[in-house]
């Protein structure tokens, strides 16, 4: 299953459409990092609104994406974690540690815009 990656100015937006397998997540990780390099993006938003399960593999992959992109000098924001998914993650003992999260796409974009302003 392909995850579409949209470019909006200096930001890339990846939207998880439905249930993703481990292979899909790894594919996404590779694709996003490549696109950040190719397009010289400064920010990435991963929209997980449609994701109904966030297990240990998915959250580890999201963390890895954020860390790889940070090493590249760009910032990642995970948006749209559903309340019941957040509850299950906490029960399972999963955290996204130092990864930035926001309520939705709009807030994620607002966060990045502010961040770019501060560093320009």
């Amino acid at each position, binding site marked *: 299953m392909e995850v579409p990656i949209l470019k909006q100015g200096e930001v890339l937006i990846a939207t998880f459409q439905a249930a993703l397998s481990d292979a899909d997540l790894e594919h996404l990780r590779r694709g996003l990092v490549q696109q950040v390099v190719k397009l010289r993006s400064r920010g990435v938003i991963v929209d997980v609104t449609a994701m109904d399960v966030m297990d240990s593999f998915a959250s580890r992959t999201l963390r890895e994406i954020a860390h790889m992109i940070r090493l590249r000098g760009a910032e990642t924001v995970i948006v749209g974690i559903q309340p*019941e998914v957040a509850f*299950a993650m906490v029960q399972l003992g999963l955290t996204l540690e130092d990864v930035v999260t926001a309520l939705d796409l709009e807030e994620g974009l607002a966060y990045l815009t502010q961040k770019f302003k501060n560093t320009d």
Partner: protein
Amino acid sequence: MRAGEIRVSINSDQDIVTARQRGRALATELGFSTGDATLIATAISELARNIVSYARKGEIALKMVNSSSRQGVLIIASDSGPGIRDIRQAMRDGFSTSGSLGLGLPGVRRLMDEFEITSEPGRGTMVTVKKWKQ
């Protein structure tokens, strides 16, 4: 196969997705809340992932269970993999032998109401969990 029992064979990462989708569908059908259906689907995902990571193949069986006063869902994850030598250690947060996060089993126990594990080195592992409808 008994009536009302769903069996999903687990051989690849795609089967993990199938198993948790079937689990969520069953939980929803039985009238579990969206929140509890998410907990059940997440637990199935972790159990199926353990099968793929440690045993390569196995099976997830899902079925409805009834006690005198309540209804619930039963999940049995079984494999004929290498088994777990030290179950107490495997049930501790942070323990892993496959380079994964190692949160699987203790996390699954927190997600569900009942948890049972039997394992024999060289023979396989069976994890049985239940979640009761509130």
